């Protein structure tokens, strides 16, 4: 798989991967959307969502890419297009791109105000938790990136942050109706 040549631990490293994927896979997606009568902005939105899904698959532990990465991304993009524009989804081949990204589309965004609060009041914790749970980086890499001298102290910090975010979510959700919406 080509992308394994790209480490994806830091924003700078991910930028290289995304430039590579843009150049390799965006033309096919844009061509497809254009053929369907879509606009440049629609092609862009769909492609960017497909990249997020691809990234999440890539960081998942059991992901083995059985087709070329640009075909994979195009497959996701086609599916997203069909879903958004209510084409008959039965005629959009799904294999080998399975159900994970359907879940992506269906997942409701969590309360934006509380997310905003967490971003501003606890960004450092959100960043370290993101590294563990979203980017799924190895703990040794996280310790290095966040300046912890040992893997143990990075792990302790992870749980401290998780506890802090959990208690904040609980407290804010229960205390302010504003956050519930």
């Amino acid at each position, binding site marked *: 798989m080509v992308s394994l040549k790209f480490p994806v631990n830091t*924003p700078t490293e*991910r*930028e290289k991967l*995304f*430039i590579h994927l*843009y*150049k390799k896979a*965006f*033309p096919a997606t*844009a*061509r497809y959307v*254009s053929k369907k009568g879509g*606009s*440049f902005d629609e*092609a*862009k939105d769909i492609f*960017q969502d497909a*990249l*997020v899904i691809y*990234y999440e698959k890539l960081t998942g532990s059991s992901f083995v890419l059985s087709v070329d990465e640009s075909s994979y991304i195009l497959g996701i993009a086609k599916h997203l297009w069909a879903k958004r524009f209510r084409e008959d989804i039965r005629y959009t081949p799904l294999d080998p791109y399975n159900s994970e990204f359907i879940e992506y589309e269906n997942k409701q*965004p*969590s309360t934006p105000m*509380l*997310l905003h609060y*967490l*971003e501003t009041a606890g960004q450092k914790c*959100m960043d370290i*938790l*993101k590294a563990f*749970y*979203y*980017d799924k980086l190895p703990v040794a890499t996280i310790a290095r990136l966040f300046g912890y001298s040992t893997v143990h102290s990075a792990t*302790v910090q992870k*749980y*401290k942050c*998780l*506890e802090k*975010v*959990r*208690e*904040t*979510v*609980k407290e804010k*959700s229960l205390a302010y109706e504003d956050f519930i919406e």
Partner: protein
Amino acid sequence: MRISLNKVEQIDDHIFSRGTTEDRLIFEAMLILDPALKSQVSWQKNALDFVQHYGRKKMKAEIESVHRRLFNEPVHRRFRNKILNLFK
């Protein structure tokens, strides 16, 4: 680690189905006996959902910045024209 942090870790192991079968069974039993623990599990899942949304939001911002580079920097002109031509 503080006792409360050990609890956070145990809940984390439970959410991600880690640990030995024995540990998992003990935790399941604790869940039945302790309603407060059950509620903590649910808040912790909630917190992890926020982390997921945060990660996704950051990732979209990173991708958008790549998009801006490709569609503005002179060095990527050929690529840009190739794409824009499709929408003429």
